């Protein structure tokens, strides 16, 4: 004898085991499952078969979990940003931009553009990283390729962690998040520790990696970029460049 309630409990256990949380979203998925079974039964389909089809139609719990986890991460990142702003965005100053080389300065111009493109009303480390990708620094793109963080991979990863805002209309100028400011300060520090008078695109990149907690740092970590090896690659590239001049 087919016991629908027992079957649904079993289905719930499988969903929970795969990491689908209760009450959100499991209760809603169960409501959907029951709705589907009821409609099919009304159309004359045997309940056991209706159940089987409804379960398949709801989908593989592992795949579903991946999608819901994404939703959670995106929300968490947005809340964290808001908190950062509330806890004193203005306290971390931007470093003096006249020390920035053209490619690095171009990054700072492109980053707000990237933010606007996402309908975001802030410039975060992810926008700085995207700006960096477009800044046309030949030596940096070479390093990034070596590190396995080329343009396409970076864009793909950022797209996974960040969703675009719904409505355009960011304020002008778009404010930099505390983490973005901190990354830029670290960039300036990287430059001076390398005895460079100017902040290059490479230093901005190192600043983003060193900052550690922003979306850019997370994305780069996912792509396997480590601070030490990135710094070593960049030093190698910079000294090669210097040798050539």
């Amino acid at each position, binding site marked *: 004898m087919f016991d629908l309630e027992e079957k649904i409990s079993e289905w719930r256990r499988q969903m929970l085991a795969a990491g689908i949380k209760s009450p959100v979203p499991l209760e809603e998925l169960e409501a959907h499952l029951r*709705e589907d079974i*009821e409609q099919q039964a009304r159309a004359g389909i045997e309940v056991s078969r209706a159940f089987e089809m409804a379960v398949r139609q709801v989908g593989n719990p592992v795949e579903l979990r991946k999608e819901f986890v994404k*939703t959670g991460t995106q929300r968490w990142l947005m809340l964290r940003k808001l908190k950062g702003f509330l806890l004193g965005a203005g306290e971390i100053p931007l470093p003096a931009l006249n020390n920035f080389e053209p490619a690095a300065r171009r990054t700072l111009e492109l980053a707000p553009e990237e933010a606007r493109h996402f309908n975001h009303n802030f410039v975060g480390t992810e926008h700085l990283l995207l700006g960096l990708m477009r800044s046309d620094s030949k030596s940096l793109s070479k390093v990034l390729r070596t590190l396995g963080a080329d343009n396409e991979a970076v864009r793909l990863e950022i797209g996974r962690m960040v969703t675009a805002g*719904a*409505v355009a209309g960011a304020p002008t100028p778009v404010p930099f998040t505390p983490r973005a400011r901190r990354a830029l300060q670290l960039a300036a520090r990287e430059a001076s520790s390398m005895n460079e008078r100017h902040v290059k695109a490479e230093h901005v990149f190192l600043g983003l990696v060193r900052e550690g907690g922003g979306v850019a740092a997370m994305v780069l970590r996912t792509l396997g970029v480590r601070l030490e090896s990135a710094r070593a690659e960049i030093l190698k590239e910079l000294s090669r460049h210097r040798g050539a001049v």
Partner: protein
Amino acid sequence: MPAIISSLDIHIGTMYSVSMIRKELVAASAEPLILSLLDRGESYGYAIIQEVKARSGGKLQWTDGMLYPVLHRMEQRGLIKARWGESETGRKRKYYSLKQDGKRAMEKHHEQWSLVHAVLSGLKKEQYV
């Protein structure tokens, strides 16, 4: 479990008998479709899926469960809002409705899809000239 295997066969069979809309396009069209459906009034997951299926002649199909992460993300972004209610038979049901930002996002989607459509049909017409 032979029962499952046989119904899986049927499932795969129907999937290939109609020319289904490819998955990238299904994903990209989810948000504008949901927004446009909710613009006509409050609705819930199951009904949204059924309506899209019916209107596309079954060619636009989501894995049902995958609709919910999309709805939740849209809710977080302030496009839609949700409330728990009851069905006619007293079962729990989560209803979604459009918010002001959602309406604006919908209009933007319509503009963009119309533009893509216009470009595409312009090019198609030129093929026959």
